């Protein structure tokens, strides 16, 4: 329970802090301080339990279907870290109370500060890999908010973004690594994973998991080559740097490496990846620290270097090195935090951190200077301070490492070199700022800060001294607990004494001290402001480069891949579909034989030749000459119609014929209102256009040919048992008709037909309604050329016949009318047994009506017409519905056909069924709908005469 409280306390504090007024500085500080202190006390109080039980656990079910539970696990190592996080947090809150100026909105600061603390404790105490990765990301987010705290400053925003981008990226990599580890181990539970070290190292995915986890750790700990974000993060308020960039967040990376050390370490890959990153960071960081002007810059690079040292130790695959690493984690936190606080005090009191402007502050602030001096000495590795102890252990490890020769020589030399740099920059840090002539042109007159602001720093320095002088009595037991929990039974023997005799590591330390002093003397003579040798090594530039490369790369990608043009999009879809279809073709070609179609009858072949020619002509003429295209499409339809007839489907042929006629008329009427085509038929088409057309043509051919042959193949395969035999057999017995198609339409599928004719009626009304509000393009509003030339007088409605040559067709068409009516009725009545039916009949009648319109003229016809298309539609629907409902009278389901068969005097044998009524409904509706649509279209041409809304049909 207290484990949960440790996590929850900072978050609750954060929530409270967020909702406080902006000016409640003291209350905020008290709140944050209390929360941090309480957490510290809680953590400290668990020491006894840790010693007794080894591992404390607490868990709450969370997302079991993902194999996740919110579990907390505290062992010795986690305890030490948690104590570090909590105690350091308390000290920094105290420091921050005096550091933040009254104008700063402190609620935000303390809220994020506590949230960060909670997240960090979460990382440390997670008993579950995924949960650890989640808290890990949360620390990145909180640190982003803290670095960007002064968000009016450009450097703060940039630094924050960079830190977030790098660490959050690493965090995602870590998540992937954790997923893999969990997959290999079979559980995300830390205990299980820690036990599964051998399985994991032997698994094929080990390299991937290692790379991903190490990537996460290195980015977080600002290790080479991802170190560049840390110096830019120095734009954060100094308490943030003291907390995040010395003691906690950057330590998360090495914490993780140590945490997973039993699982991942021990292989060559681990040695090379972790070790070399550590070594490079150690040397490069120390070297770069020499040349910084900003006090915090020196500290940032020094942090990189010291974390490199820890990483290197962890990478050495030796338990003793691990002990040294854990020890150095603690030591580094104490002296580095204290130095950050000193830098903050200097900044706070003088208004600058520029080391070229600062000088001789010892006189103005002796206590600060003394504290900084001791802490810097610890950083440099001066004996009797804690930094010296862990550095000695590190030197010893480099000397005694069990590796091939060149590594055994190279490592100690590199370590000594880094030690030298470290001495030199520590010296510079102290000497430059606190000694020498007093500075003159400082923004503020320097003086000692309030006592409480010095207290945290003093406490840390005191710890440095205490640990440095009596290591075995102060830090000894804690270190033992921590290392024991990682290494278990294989914890090596080590001694925490100051004096190990006059040995090689001590020689190295002395050499580093002497060399560092000499180096500093040399450095003093230098005037140039640049970094020699590594001038061009700038991670920030690489980072910016990656950012811009991503953006420009993305834009280029878009330019190549993305088009907003519909044609291109269509083309791509077709091409992709084509490519996808090739997939199964390449996989398996069994059973793909093209059945030979056999030689067709020459007449039939000729028919299809004509039909095909018409179709091609339609497509070709569609752009240049619409009327010709329309006529040709009629030809295709005719060929289809004849094909039906050829294959003994007279019913289909008849239907096709009438539909074809009506369609052509419909299109003909619509042609007039299409926008004028662009006549600029430029004779010289550019080559690119030609190429594009060829490309499109070949793709079209390929796709069409493929589809056609596929359809052919499928069609020529033996067909499965369909439903057609049922209809053929049962049409007469069940439907009482010989015309199967008609029986299907009006009986078997009567309900469908009812639905369809309803739709047809609605469509007709919609077309009518839409055309009433139709606004044609202005250029098609004027009279056609022919009409203008002949300047036809307004039609005379009283005249019997139109004047001129139109009289002949007018007479013919009028004669046609009763004949057509008769034929249509004939089709309707015989439909049930022979080709015909309501649909065909209706279309025939509609065609004659529209012929009257075409030849006689709209005005003339309508002055005499008694035809009310909407009434026909309504009556048709009613009739069909009545036929359906009639079945109810015989307690049969809707639309069941009832038939009466008998003989009447005079008429003879008669077969009457409700189906006839239904078919009459279809007939009437088709007539009404077709006429209504065509007439509405025809009325459009009246516009030019009247310039007023057309009065289509009968209203």
């Amino acid at each position, binding site marked *: 329970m207290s484990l949960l409280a440790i996590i929850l306390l900072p978050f609750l504090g954060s929530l409270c802090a967020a909702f406080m007024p902006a000016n409640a500085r003291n209350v905020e500080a008290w709140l944050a301080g209390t929360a941090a202190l309480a957490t510290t006390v809680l953590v400290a109080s668990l020491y006894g339990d840790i010693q007794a039980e080894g591992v404390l656990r607490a868990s709450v079910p969370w997302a079991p279907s993902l194999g996740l539970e919110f579990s907390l696990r505290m062992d010795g190592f986690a305890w030490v870290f948690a104590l570090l996080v909590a105690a350091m947090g308390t000290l920094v809150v105290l420091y921050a109370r005096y550091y933040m100026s009254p104008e700063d909105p402190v609620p935000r600061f303390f809220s994020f500060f506590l949230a960060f603390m909670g997240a960090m404790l979460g990382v440390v105490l997670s008993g579950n890999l995924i949960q650890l990765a989640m808290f890990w990301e949360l620390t990145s987010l909180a640190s982003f908010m803290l670095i960007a705290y002064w968000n009016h400053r450009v450097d703060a925003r940039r630094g924050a973004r960079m830190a977030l981008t790098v660490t959050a990226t690493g965090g995602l*990599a870590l998540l992937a690594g954790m997923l893999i580890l969990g997959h290999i181990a079979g559980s995300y539970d830390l205990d299980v994973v820690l036990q599964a070290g051998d399985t994991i190292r032997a698994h094929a995915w080990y390299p991937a998991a290692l790379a991903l986890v190490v990537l996460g750790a290195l980015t977080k700990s600002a290790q080479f080559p991802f170190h560049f974000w840390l110096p830019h993060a120095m734009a954060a308020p100094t308490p943030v740097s003291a907390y995040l960039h010395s003691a906690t967040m950057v330590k998360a990376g090495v914490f993780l490496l140590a945490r997973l050390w039993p699982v991942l370490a021990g292989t060559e890959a681990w040695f090379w990846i972790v070790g070399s990153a550590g070594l490079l960071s150690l040397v490069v960081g120390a070297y770069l620290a020499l040349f910084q002007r900003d006090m915090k810059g020196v500290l940032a690079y020094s942090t990189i270097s010291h974390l490199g040292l820890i990483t290197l130790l962890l990478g050495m695959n030796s338990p003793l090195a691990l002990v040294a690493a854990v020890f150095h984690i603690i030591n580094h936190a104490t002296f580095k935090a204290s130095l950050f606080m000193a830098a903050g005090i200097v900044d706070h009191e003088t208004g600058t951190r520029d080391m070229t402007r600062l000088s001789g502050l010892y006189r103005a602030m002796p206590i600060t200077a003394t504290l900084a001096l001791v802490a810097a000495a610890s950083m440099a590795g001066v004996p009797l301070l804690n930094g010296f102890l862990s550095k000695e252990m590190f030197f010893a490890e480099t000397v005694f490492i069990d590796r091939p020769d060149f590594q055994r020589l190279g490592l100690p030399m590199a370590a000594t070199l880094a030690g030298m740099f470290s001495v030199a920059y520590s010296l510079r840090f102290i000497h430059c700022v606190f000694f020498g002539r007093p500075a003159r042109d400082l923004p503020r007159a320097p003086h000692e800060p309030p006592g409480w602001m010095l207290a945290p720093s003093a406490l840390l320095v005191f710890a440095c001294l205490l640990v440095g002088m009596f290591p075995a009595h102060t830090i000894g037991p804690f270190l033992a607990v921590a290392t024991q929990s990682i290494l278990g039974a294989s914890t090596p023997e080590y001694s925490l004494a100051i004096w190990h005799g006059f040995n090689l590591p001590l020689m190295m330390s002395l050499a580093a001290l002497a060399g560092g002093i000499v180096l500093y003397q040399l450095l003093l003579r230098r005037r140039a402001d640049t970094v020699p040798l590594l001038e061009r090594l700038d991670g920030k530039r690489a980072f910016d480069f990656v950012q811009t490369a991503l953006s420009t790369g993305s834009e280029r990608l878009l330019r190549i891949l993305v088009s907003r043009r519909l044609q291109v999009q269509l083309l791509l879809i077709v091409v992709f579909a084509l490519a996808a279809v090739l997939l199964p073709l390449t996989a398996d070609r069994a059973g793909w034989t093209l059945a030979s179609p056999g030689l067709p009858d020459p007449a039939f072949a000729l028919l299809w030749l004509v039909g095909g020619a018409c179709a091609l002509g339609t497509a070709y003429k569609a752009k240049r000459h619409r009327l010709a295209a329309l006529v040709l499409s009629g030809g295709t339809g005719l060929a289809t119609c004849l094909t039906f007839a050829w294959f003994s489907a007279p019913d289909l042929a008849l239907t096709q014929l009438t539909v074809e006629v009506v369609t052509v008329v419909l299109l003909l009427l619509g042609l007039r209102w299409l926008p004028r085509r662009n006549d600029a038929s430029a004779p010289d088409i550019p080559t690119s256009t030609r190429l594009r057309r060829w490309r499109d043509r070949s793709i079209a051919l390929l796709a069409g040919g493929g589809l056609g042959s596929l359809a052919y193949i499928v069609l020529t395969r033996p067909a499965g048992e369909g439903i057609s035999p049922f209809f053929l057999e049962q049409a007469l017995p069940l439907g009482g008709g010989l015309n199967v198609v008609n029986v299907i339409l009006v009986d078997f599928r009567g309900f469908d037909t009812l639905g369809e004719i309803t739709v047809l009626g609605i469509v007709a009304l919609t077309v009518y309604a839409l055309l009433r509000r139709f606004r044609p393009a202005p250029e098609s509003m004027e009279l056609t050329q022919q009409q203008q030339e002949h300047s036809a007088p307004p039609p005379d409605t009283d005249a019997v016949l139109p004047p001129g040559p139109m009289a002949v067709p007018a007479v013919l068409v009028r004669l046609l009318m009763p004949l057509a009516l008769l034929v249509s009725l004939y089709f309707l009545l015989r439909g049930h047994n022979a080709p015909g039916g309501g649909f065909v009949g209706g279309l025939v009648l509609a065609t004659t009506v529209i012929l009257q319109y075409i030849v006689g003229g709209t005005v003339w016809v309508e002055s005499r017409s008694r035809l009310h298309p909407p009434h026909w539609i309504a009556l048709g629907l009613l009739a069909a519905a009545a036929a359906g409902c009639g079945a109810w009278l015989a307690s049969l389901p809707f639309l069941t056909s009832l038939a009466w068969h008998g003989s009447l005097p005079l008429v003879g044998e008669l077969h009457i069924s409700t189906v006839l009524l239904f078919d009459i409904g279809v007939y009437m509706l088709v007539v009404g709908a077709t006429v209504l649509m065509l007439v509405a279209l025809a009325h459009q041409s009246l516009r030019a005469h009247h310039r007023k809304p057309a009065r289509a049909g009968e209203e």
Partner: protein
Amino acid sequence: MNFVVPDFYPAAAEIFVAIMALVVMLASTFARGVRWLAYALTQFTLIAAAFVTIYTLKGDVSYTFSNLFIGDLLGDLLKLLIYFSMAIALLYGRGYLADRNIDKPEYYVLALLMTLGMMVMVTANHMLPLYIGLEMMSLGLYAMVAFDRDSARSTEAGMKYFVLGALASGLLLYGMSMIYGATGSLEFSGIANAVYHQAANKTVLLFGIVFLMAGISFKLGVVPFHMWVPDVYQGAPSAVTLIIATAPKLAAFAMAVRLLIWGLFDVAEQWQSMLMFVAVLSIILGNLAAIAQTNLKRMLAYSGISHMGFMLLGLLSGVVEGDRHYALNAYSSAMFYAVSYVIMSLASFGMIILLSRAGFEADSIDDFKGLNKRSPWFAAMMMFVMFSMAGIPFFIGFFAKLSVLQAVVAAGYLWIAIIAVVMSVIGAFYYLRVVKVMYFDPPVDPAPIHAPAELRVLLSANGLAIAALGLAPQALMSVCAYALLASL
């Protein structure tokens, strides 16, 4: 052939919505003056339909309409989510439509019919109703995209959507006919049966699967059939974009699940390899292309492409070398992803609507500049959404990503997991850019935000839900898993 009266009970919700769509149409025709009527009736319909669905909810699977219709928990859950997201989307969009004077009753009729289409898709047990539902949904959407008739953009988007959508429908239909040719059945269980007994012609079946995949990919908006997504998202009125980006994704998910898992589970490895291609390309292209966008709607469109790719990761890791041990887990992770995406999408497009006013579309990323100064609360909500979409922990998006990645790793596709992670990193880049703009840049227009109270309240609830579900994701996850388990 005896006439059997079908059992209407399982389809009560569909019937109710169909009737109500007609009622809304007639009511708004005869009461043209009452502007709120269509909207109110539509919302009533959606809420009442939810009650009908809950009331008719059954634990077991039932079939009706000659096995054309399946009533199962998966369908019911998805239907509930569809009502929910439609209701919220209509609520968000109402003020927006009114500002542009396009809040016509027809809009709501179309929305209801579209909802009906989605419901039919979700409960189809047969290719035909599936296709009918799909067309019903799509036709409604085409019209809604072009609803702002005076805007050239909107009309163009509608036209494009229609032409491309028709082509894709054609491909899907072609695929269905191929599947029918291979298996002799249009009913999913019949298809599954034929495939199981290896009675189906393998090549024809593969052809069919390819075309089905093309159709599904188009409706989900994934590479290589994604071209319409950015154009339509940007061109459509934001209120319609909001609808396109939410409920139809659930319906498309249902379509994919019914076709692939109900029908073609036994050839899972065939379609999984196709899905792999589609998913990985979508994740890569969606994320890379989103970086260069300056228009937020386009950015979200590309991000949506990548999100759908992620969702497919769950679908493609069900069966590994014949081992179906992980299937349920994988499919429920995909479903969870789809649901979380819908929740996040609602909030993100809701924010665009919130910031838009009459005559002004807040669809550029620059329009979010300095939002923190104008309204810290909604800046925080937008930040939640962006973080969640980026997959940052303790938001729902993180768990969605986590669960599909887990499925992918469990299936042994290490390389896919790594590509997905690398691409989420790149994704985080553009989501965080929005956050940066909101918090760090000075506002272009410092005016405070004016929006109807209900929009503010619901959007806040939506944003908070993203955070709350991130803290306690288990309930939603178990519901998804349970619905799949009970329906399979």
